[in-house]
Structure formats: C-alpha cells, structure tokens
C-alpha cells in the first residue's frame, strides 16, 4: 500500500472491494486503496499507520534497538488455537522478547494469491489486530502484493518488528557458562502436532491446540527476577532440539537435558507416536528456554510460573563443560543419548 495511491481514497466513488482478491488489489491503484480502506485500516488503524506515509515515523525510548523479521506460510491458515495472523504477530514479537526487548512496532507485508476470498483475508487481518493489541505492539507500516493463481498459496505474511532493550539487559549465548540451568516454560510440541493433525485430516480428539502465544510478559518476568539471565531463545521450527543445539554450538558448551523433566502432554506424545515423530523436534509457537546462572534458577522458575505462559515451567537441564557443542539427554533409565538437530524436514517413519 504505497502512499502514492492513497489520494484515491478521497475519490468520491471508490471501487467497492469485491468478494475475492484479484490482481488489481496489488496494483497500487484504486483496488489497493479500497483494500486498505476496508480491511487493513479498520483493523490495524493507529496514529502512525493512519498517516499513510511511505514509511512509519516513530519515537523510541533510549536504549539499544532490537530488530527482527520472519515470514509466515503456514497451511492451513486457521487451526485450533490460532491462525497465520496470530503467528505473524506473536512469532516476530517473541523473537524480540527473548532478546530482552520490549516489542513496540511491527511491519506487515502480505503476498496474496489471486482468487483468495476477501472474507478470509479479513479474518486473518482481524486476528492479527487482536494479537497485536494483546502483545502491546502497533502495526505501523505494510505492503500488499498479489500473485497469479497457482503462484502462491492463499496468504504469505512477512512481519518485521522493532523493540527497545532496556539499559543493563545484555543477553546472548556467548554469556552461557558451565553450571548454568536451563528452564523451559511449558509442554513442547503442541503447535507442530496440531498443524500436522489438521493437514493430514487426522481426527485426533482431545486437547490438541497450538500453543501460539505472546511471550513478552514471561520474558519481562524472567529478566526482572534473574540478574544472572544469560540468554533466552524461543522454540519454533526444529523444536527444543534445535534451540539447545544452537546454544551449545555458539556457547561452545555441552548441554545435558533430563528427559523426565521435559513436559510433553499425553495428546502430543500419542500423536508423535502415531506420526513417528520426536516431540524434541516438533515446532512450538509459545515456548522458550531461558538459561540462567545456577543461583538464579529458582527465582527465574518462580517468575515464569507467575505468568500464564509459564505456569508449567520446569528446570530441564544444565550447561556442562563436557562435550562442547553437543546436547545430551539423560534418559529415564539413566543412560545418555545425543539429541541432534533434525536433518531436513521432519517426515514420518513407515513402521
């Protein structure tokens, strides 16, 4: 929605938005303006966006700025517990929050496939707006493109976000030390398994719901409670296995996880058994690990548990001097095994 076309909003007889996305909606002409007027502004409207400039002009508090971007291509668009719209907000917000930042502003760029029902777009946009309000961020700039039918898949969204890192908060895997404790804010694997069950049309009954949620409040609580907080990382694709492996590699330290302390719901375990997956590799959208100095482990745990997104937090492991770069799981039988990153996509086994 480049601002150059915005004067057409003032056209006395604007083209009405039709029932489906057509190529013209991305042309920068009147249909683009109608889309802005009828769908985006009513949902996202805020003083910065309403100015409809080529760029958002915002003021930031003093401090270092955290800046991140992510693209969202989930299929199906809507699933139990969330939608692509919520993911597009929370995913980017969480990337900022785990850096200790207070997320403030997002951009949102949409790639729409010709023929998409406008009602679908409206639903996604409305859910993004609700998510942004919940996460305390404003969507202040954006863009829309339309591609021919078959060149996309309904909706792809890219969001970028900025936030301010308060004075004195310095986090990163390079600060991780042997003896540090690893905390996880709740049961893993819920998002990935929910999506897979939807995609495969598997009628898994029960409480299979994506964990999509903003983690800002949780991060804030941990930052406050644990001066010895080293780093946090949200667990998205690749799951807990990838996040711990990345930290072990950057910190050149070993990670020892205790299998018994890692929470996994029965539904997720059951579905993983069925699909031949390991919950350690399954995607999450509302989970993080925090690595803290040993003396801060209990206060960080209490802080996590004091907020909704961390009610079921656990200490799940320690950082070790042994086997740098390697993540090891101590099994319930007292034996050790390597926890590797997934190679390629997670595919089910055949028997």
């Amino acid at each position, binding site marked *: 929605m480049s601002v150059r076309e915005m004067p057409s909003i003032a056209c006395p007889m604007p083209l009405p938005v039709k029932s489906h996305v057509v190529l013209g909606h991305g042309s920068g002409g009147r249909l683009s303006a109608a889309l802005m007027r009828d769908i985006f502004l009513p949902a996202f409207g805020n003083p910065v966006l309403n100015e409809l400039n080529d760029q958002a002009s915002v003021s930031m508090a003093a401090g270092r700025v955290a800046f991140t971007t992510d693209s969202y291509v989930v299929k199906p668009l809507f699933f139990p517990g969330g939608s692509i719209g919520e993911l597009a907000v929370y995913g980017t917000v969480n990337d900022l929050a785990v850096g200790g930042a207070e997320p403030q502003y997002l951009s949102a760029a949409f790639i729409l496939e010709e023929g998409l029902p406008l009602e679908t777009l409206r639903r996604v946009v409305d859910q993004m707006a609700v998510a942004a309000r919940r996460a305390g961020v404003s969507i202040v700039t954006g863009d829309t493109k339309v591609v021919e039918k078959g060149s996309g898949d309904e909706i792809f969204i890219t969001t970028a976000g900025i936030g301010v890192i308060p004075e004195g908060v310095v986090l990163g895997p390079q600060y991780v030390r042997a003896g540090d404790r690893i905390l996880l804010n709740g049961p893993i694997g819920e998002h990935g398994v929910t999506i897979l069950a939807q995609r495969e049309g598997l009628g898994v009954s029960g409480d299979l719901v994506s964990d999509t949620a903003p983690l800002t409040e949780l991060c804030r609580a941990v930052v406050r409670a644990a001066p010895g907080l080293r780093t946090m990382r949200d667990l998205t694709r690749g799951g807990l296995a990838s996040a711990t492996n990345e930290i072990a590699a950057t910190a050149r330290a070993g990670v020892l996880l205790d299998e018994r302390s890692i929470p996994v719901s029965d539904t997720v375990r059951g579905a993983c058994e069925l699909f031949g997956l390991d919950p350690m590799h399954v995607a999450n959208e509302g989970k993080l690990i925090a690595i803290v100095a040993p003396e801060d482990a209990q206060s960080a745990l209490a802080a996590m548990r004091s907020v909704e997104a961390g009610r079921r937090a656990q200490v799940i492991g320690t950082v070790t001097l042994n086997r740098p770069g390697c993540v090891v799981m101590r099994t319930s039988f007292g034996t050790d095994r390597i926890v590797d990153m997934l190679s390629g996509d997670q595919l*089910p086994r055949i*028997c």
Partner: protein
Amino acid sequence: MRYLDEYRDERLFRSQLARLTQIATRPWVLMEVCGGQTHTLVRYGIDELLPAGMEMVHGPGCPVCVTPVEIIDKAIALARRPNTILVSYGDMMRVPGSESDLLHVKALGGDVRMVYSPTESVKIALENPACEVVFFGVGFETTAPANAMVAWQARRQGIRNLSLLSSHVLVPPAVEMLLSSPHNRVQGLIAPGHVCSIMGTGAYEELAAKYKVPIVIGGFEPVDLMEAIVMLTAQLEEGRCDMENQYRRSVREAGNQRAREMLFEVYEVCDRKWRGLGEVAVSGLQLSAAYREFDAELRFGLEDISVAEPKECISAMILQGLAKPKQCGAFGTRCTPESPLGAPMVSSEGACAAYYLYRRHNGEMSEDECVPSGEGA
C-alpha cells in the same frame, strides 16, 4: 499414556534388569532382528546396561535400509517421467539413490506425493485419469498386506493408470542365512514382533528347532526388549532353545490370517537382493501372475537399472552382527545419514544411523553434571 507408559516404566525395566544380572553367568551374544528394536535399544542405551560381557548385535530388519539402491533409482526414474505421479511413504523420500533422491526430484518439478496409507494412491489414480500413478512401497511382511491392497483394488475396480513399484522382503530367509553362516556369533534372537503379528509364530519355531537357537518374539518398547533379553538369557542358561512370545499383546500363534490371505492373493515368493547382504533365496515378494499387469517395472521397462554397492561399506558385516558401526573407518566421516555409503546408515532404524544419531560422541558424563534432582519438579 496408556499402553505405552507401562512399557517404558523405569521400575519394571529395572526389576527385569536386576533379574538379568542375577541369571546371566556368561557373555551371551544376542541379536535383535528388527530396526525398530535397534532404534529403541540405542535410543535408551539399553545395550549399555547389560551385565558385563553380554552383547547385543543388530540385525538386518530395517526395510528402508535393505532396499537396493536400484529400486530407489527406478522410483526416481518414474518420478521424472512426464504425466506420472509417484506416491510413497515419507520415509522413502530422503533415501538417496545413486545420484539423487525423491525430494530433489520433487523440487525440480516431479510429482511426488507422500501418503500415510497406500490406498490413498487409488484415490489419486481415480482423480488423475490422464496420469500414470505409481505407488512405491517397500517393507517386510508387516507393510506388504497394505501395499497389496493397492494392486487388489486397482484390479477389482479396473483402474488402468495405477501400478506398483515394490520391494518386499521376508524376514525368516534372511535370519536363516545368518544362522547357517559359519561366521555366525548370534546365540539368541529377538524376532520382530510386528512381522509376527501378521505372519504368526510358526516360521520362528522351525528356525529355533533347526538351528538350536532360542528365539523370543519381542516388542519395541524398553520393557519389552528387556523382558525378551531376560527370556532369551534364561533359555540359554538352562540350555533350552525354544520359540517364546514376549509380545503377546500383539502376536497370536496364527498371526493375522486375513492380512496373509491378501498378501498371498497379490504376491508370490521370489529370490530378492538385499542391500548389504546381496541375493537371498526365496526372501522376497513379487506380484503374482494375476497381478503382474500392475508391476511398474514391467509396465515402464525399468528392469535393466542396476547399481553396485560401494566397496568401502562393511554393511554386510553389520547386518549379520559381525561388526559394530564404529568399527567402520567411514562411520561418521565419509558415511553419514545425509550421505550414506550403505544400508544401515540410510534410515534412522538402521544400526549405523542409530549409532550416529545417538552415540557418535563417546565418553561418560560425571554424575555431578546431572540436573540436581527435585529441582523444578
């Protein structure tokens, strides 16, 4: 979780292990045949908990692993054909052929589809009458009946654009080959539970009697495997060599008769090449005369594709229990799951891949590095 937690129960497992320690007086060498069992053993480190001297060696029972490379190449050739849809299980997608794999062919525009049930290929064939649809299925006796359903339904419904590329192998002939080898070290066998739930227990009773080796049909969870190890050890210590069934919750003596009927309606026994083992007599299944028109190899003239195994690979030794993955000079360096030289590194259920996945770094961790107990509980 019911029906699972019981079989991963630490106390049950420990009490079986204590019993094993009590009765084992000699360094018995046992083999688990099935790749699923290998995976559990290595994942939970069960083989490392056995009394000193006792050893688990890993058998040839990973169906993806023992599928010859030329079958993968044939699948790739089919996936590259215009107007052809290749349908398979997810596990086959990443298995490297001699120069590519199905995921790459898909990325370059081949129509490759992943399904959970082989009969979905029937639906795909009906929905795409202008395309040839080929279902690519490999496996042991466990998956053969379901794959047979594809040809059975195609014939029954007169679906002309559907065929099968299949490479099925049978467990007992391969086990017999191992046991009859002059180099055999295996003193007791854990037979594959899921295969037996289809085929019944008869063939293993015969093998136990013929080769005077105790055989226990085992399940796939830690408690199952430990119980099977205890049962085998008890037999060995008592000088018995019977067939016993640990996996009673799934395996009946007669197996699954309806599944077997379907299997032998569509398939007949043939000689078959195993990756790593070579040709094993009467160890495979091919479409029977009445169903041969659904054989993709014949329909598309693919019989001539053949590939030689890399010389460096010692998979024949691994699959017979004569060597361990780490004894191979290429393990973890020139041979990895991303770029396997041979059968056992191909699928996560292969012995080499399981060692690579869970054990490629050695060395014990000291107790003080453990998570302090009770913390965060």
